[in-house]
């Protein structure tokens, strides 16, 4: 799919563009504008392997006022703009197309306000996800959404992609934590929503901006709801002789009335891969592993874990004994949390983040294996069993074009199979560039037209993060709906 980049026409040279970088350099503090070819290489790519873009320049503002200045000047010069967080996108969402001006948030990392009584924090968009919890945990609060890149990914990027991870089951996604938002529109105007505004909007514009992948406005500040740190946390780990038994156990758990903090699935390939890289006692003879964690008050969690243990199947369906441990001293999550690191030991890989309705989860697991094997591609799957999200890792080793092409075709086939089951091509990473041309398989043309019109109401002409998310209708790089 990275060939799509090459098929895009070169941006039309516009005389006004020539001076905009100079004007920005004059208007902003020293060092805020990066234009040397060497320094720009960092901003040409992101966490995906979708190729490189062509940034006009990079601007690193420090606050909303400076972002307004940049957006205004870019709009006047007709220069498209690409918001960039920490550049951890796994779908090419932060690759600059059309010689966009990249606006980065790496100088916007301040905590602006922290209300320790009400559990609310107002931060600039560039602060790292994990830094929010680091700032608040001494007061007994944490920020729950936990994308796998949480050590480095920025809150602005999280809001832009409505990021979430395993903990979404109990604590919700980024959109559930958002209480206020400040953004700058294409024309440089400021948008204050939620708690940042004295007057509520009639439409849920804040919810709309969450997950809009930088196409509607540049998010500069957000207010987030925090969760109290739990008094205690216990983990149950069980190895199964079949995925069927593992899925049936998870369903009993979800129906029990106890909502785990997270409940995760690993197939045999993921068990073996992680046990090789980050050994933590997984049984490599098992066909599936379920890890779950309960959090809450001490007596509540102990009672809950006891009850959930009773939901385990007959010992004949298990490999060994289920392990129950206090999470603090348990090593059982180390393997699950090392899955990206483990996959990277195989070289380059494509990571899926597809979703299917829970009732189709087991069938989809099987289908993923069938598709990968038919394509001759190795695979390993971990999954969030509470919401039906599958992360399948498809390695292709060295940057070999033929192997990569085979893996990408396999990945697309899995995504389309999920859509056929009523699911989604993306549950967590977003659409960005790499899944853009598949969106037409999930939505009809009229649905995408409406999405495009809403985008244009915010940023006419699609000049914010251009070329992403919504495929061109009848465009030169569009792919017809399947």
């Amino acid at each position, binding site marked *: 799919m990275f060939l799509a980049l090459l098929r895009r026409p070169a941006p039309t040279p516009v005389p006004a563009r020539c001076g905009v970088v100079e004007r920005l350099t004059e208007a902003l503090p020293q060092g805020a504008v990066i234009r040397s070819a060497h320094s720009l290489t960092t901003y040409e790519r992101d966490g995906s392997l979708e190729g490189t873009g062509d940034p006009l320049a990079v601007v690193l503002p420090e606050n909303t006022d400076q972002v307004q200045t940049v957006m205004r000047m870019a709009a006047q010069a007709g220069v498209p703009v690409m918001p960039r967080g920490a550049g951890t996108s796994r779908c090419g969402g932060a690759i600059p197309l059309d010689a966009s001006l990249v606006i980065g948030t790496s100088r916007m990392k301040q905590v602006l306000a922290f*209300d320790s*009584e*009400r*559990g*609310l924090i107002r931060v600039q968009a560039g602060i790292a996800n994990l830094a929010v919890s680091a700032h608040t945990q001494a007061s007994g609060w944490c920020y729950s959404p936990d994308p796998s890149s949480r050590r480095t990914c920025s809150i602005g990027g999280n809001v832009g*992609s*409505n990021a979430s991870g395993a903990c979404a089951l109990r604590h919700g996604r980024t*959109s559930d934590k958002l*209480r206020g938002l400040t953004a700058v529109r294409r024309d440089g105007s400021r*948008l204050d*929503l939620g708690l940042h*505004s*004295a*007057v*509520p*909007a*009639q*439409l*849920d*514009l804040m*919810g*709309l901006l*969450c*997950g809009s992948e930088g*196409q*509607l406005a540049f998010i500069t500040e957000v207010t987030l*709801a925090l969760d*109290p740190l*739990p008094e205690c946390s216990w983990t149950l780990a069980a190895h199964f002789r079949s995925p069927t038994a593992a899925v049936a156990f998870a369903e009993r758990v*979800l*129906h029990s*009335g*106890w909502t785990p903090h997270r409940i995760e699935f690993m197939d045999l390939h993921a068990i073996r891969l992680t046990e090789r890289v980050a050994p933590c006692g997984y049984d490599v003879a098992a066909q599936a592993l379920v890890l779950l964690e309960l959090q*809450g*008050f001490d*007596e509540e969690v102990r*009672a*809950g874990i006891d009850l959930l243990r009773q939901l385990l199947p007959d010992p004949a369906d298990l490999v060994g004994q289920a392990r129950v441990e206090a999470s603090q001293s348990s090593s059982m999550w180390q393997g699950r949390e090392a899955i990206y690191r483990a996959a990277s030991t195989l070289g380059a890989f494509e990571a899926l983040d597809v*979703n299917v*309705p*829970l*009732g189709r989860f087991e069938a989809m697991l099987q289908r993923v294996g069938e598709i990968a094997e038919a394509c001759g591609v190795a695979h390993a799957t971990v999954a969030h069993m509470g919401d*039906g999200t599958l992360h399948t890792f498809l390695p292709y080793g060295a940057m070999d074009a033929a192997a990569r092409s085979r893996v990408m075709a396999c990945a697309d086939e899995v995504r389309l199979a999920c859509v056929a089951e*009523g*699911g*989604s*091509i*993306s*549950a*967590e990473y977003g659409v960005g560039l790499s*899944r853009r041309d598949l*969106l037409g398989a*999930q939505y009809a043309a*009229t*649905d995408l037209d*409406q999405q495009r*019109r*809403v985008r*244009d*109401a915010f940023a006419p002409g699609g000049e914010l993060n251009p070329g992403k998310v919504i495929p061109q209708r009848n465009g030169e790089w569009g792919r017809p709906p399947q």
Partner: protein
Amino acid sequence: MIYYDALTESSVVSSFAPDREEDAAEWLRSARSRRARVRLCGGDTRRRSRAEDPVHTLSSRNLCGVLRYEPRDRLIVARAGTPLAVVEQLLARNGQRLPFEPADPRHLLGRPGTPTIGAVAAANVTGPRGLEAGEARAHLLAARLLNGRIESVRCGTATLKDVAGVDLTRLVAGSLGRLGLITEVAFRVVSIPEHELTLRIAAPARDLLRWSAQARARGIRLTGGVWLCGASMLEAGYGRCCGSAFLRLEGPHAMVTAHRRRMLDLLPTDADVEECSGPTSAAIWTRLRDGSFLPAVEADDVWEWRLGAEGEALDPVRPFDEIGLNWQLDLGGRRLLCVAGAGVRSEQLTQLASAGLPQCRPALLRGSGGSVRAHRMSRPGTSFQPLERAVMASFDPDHVLA
């Protein structure tokens, strides 16, 4: 300042309630060609319009039926006109429910009609359980909408987690018919908990706000927090008091027991606490959810103030504490309801509201004498009003929808 955008029965020129989306589209196309103004409605439990001109009404109430429900999926897809009661009964038979406890507005509005699942989405109807679960919009997974361009548009995907594309469900939820006729909805569902427990504590309203915030900070999962005034308590047979806070805990027995103990630790040692559980508790919360402890009669005005998310000033209710009206505060449903007799002038109430709840939008849900009108406080100009208009126009460029 109040503006009256009253809609009387006589201003309705014609109404249509198709049982097929295609027929709705045809009717809407005809209305658009005649430049007629169309008001959308569901089960006819409320009246609302911003138009003073005669309008034609298009109702989704005959678009009925559950389209997809498999308990394992933990979601339900239904046509918009499906009665809410039908959806709730189906879910209950399988040990499930909607997470956000939508209220039945008929008592407060003094209307017949049938609450529908589509109207729950259109009005973002959320009840006390919203305190823990969030608003209805957080659980709306997908919707199908017939927009003002007469296009059938699907927003979102009926699966539990999806970030593909621009999330139009966030616009549709709470849009009150401004964007199009909702014809189908998909909502997340959850298991019905094993046990529920209600704590009733005689206390002023500000104590409810304090306890709720403290409970959240300590990890106590309250699934309802409502304060009911003394006058309403007395009429409901609870005896004389300054008013009571109702707190609810739900979950497996062991969980409720642990959270109850922590909650009682938070309360003053001399607090007057009564507890109930099971059907008694459930019956209380149905009445709190619907505002039916408030003795609204034909001659009364019923006012509603929509509250924002948690984090707004936690002392907004003091002015209401000092007035002798029937009122209740629902933290999960994010609304303050007030019933004012004919003697109370609306200007007094709006002044009171402006002082106490500056960030909230008060609305007269029901006017005195039983007439049904929608009065809304005018809002100060905001930077996002032109943007909202542009977004609405992207769905309805010819302003067909009233």
